[in-house]
């Protein structure tokens, strides 16, 4: 599916993004953003298959290794699948992890503005 299409001369987005704030808890080992991204994609692939990986448009916006705060973006139609795959992830390259989805928003600005809640 194309990211945008032209309707009546205007460019419109054909899918909606969701940004999710995730807390990454580890056993003390530092993990890079790339490794987390790859592990989440592998988990989506294992649980839901290639089609969902393709549809997910999964991307890590930012990850702070010192605090464990990670912001991801994905397609809103499969956000639940992405969060399930993320929650089911227990290990990245031999390091035990627990990924805790905190909150979801349509924009990063909204995600950071909103008061912390479940």
């Amino acid at each position, binding site marked *: 599916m194309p990211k945008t299409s032209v309707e009546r001369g205007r460019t419109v987005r054909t899918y909606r993004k969701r940004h999710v704030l995730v807390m990454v808890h580890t056993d003390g080992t530092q993990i890079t953003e790339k490794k987390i991204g790859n592990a989440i994609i592998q988990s989506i692939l294992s649980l839901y298959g290639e089609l969902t990986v393709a549809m997910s448009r999964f991307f890590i916006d930012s990850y702070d290794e010192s605090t464990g705060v990670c912001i991801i973006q994905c397609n809103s139609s499969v956000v639940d699948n992405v969060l*399930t795959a993320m929650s089911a992830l227990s290990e990245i390259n031999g390091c035990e992890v627990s990924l805790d989805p905190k909150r979801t928003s349509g924009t990063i600005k909204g995600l950071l503005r909103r008061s912390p809640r479940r």
Partner: protein
Amino acid sequence: MGLVDLSVRIESMDLLDRFTLMARSLRISGFATTCPLDTPITFRDNVSVYARTNLQLRSIDELRVQARRARERSVVVAIALGTRQTVAWAATDPNVDLITVDPYARECIMHRPVARLAADNDKLLEIQIQPLLKTTGLERSRILKTLRSNLETAVEVGMKPVISSNASTPTQMRSSAALRFIGKLLSSDEELLQCAVDELPNETVRRNLDRHL
């Protein structure tokens, strides 16, 4: 009140602080563990630690005595889903709270009449997510099949499920939101999952603490 995790495996009391630290960062208000505690409930860093006993599968008479003793010193008493006779006994015994699905024992399944009996006596079906986290591929799909079929049978006859982590390390613990998302692998009923993760574990602990007080 935050999440109460009904099953956490702590091998020694020295590790308790690591679990309570993780529980606090995941906003878990309390958890039940089989680790020997002096009292049925202990408070550590604003986290309640409840004593739990897993009944060992033996004869019915032995189980009856074991359950009565466990009730006196534990807040949560559970038994693994075993033979039909054992589960039928557990379904009616007032000292048992949870019937735990063992996803590796595929021959031990929840039969509809026993599930109905358990539902009538307010017993809960406990589903532990730890095997789902530790496996991948075909092995995980087999576990999913076992868990889903037991859950389906239980829900059909009105038996309520609870979801617990059965974590053996702090990083295997999961927050309420993460448990609900993992629960979506087993059921798409959001209301059922909310109840299984947030409400029923709290209710079970509160009810049993009232018995102890």
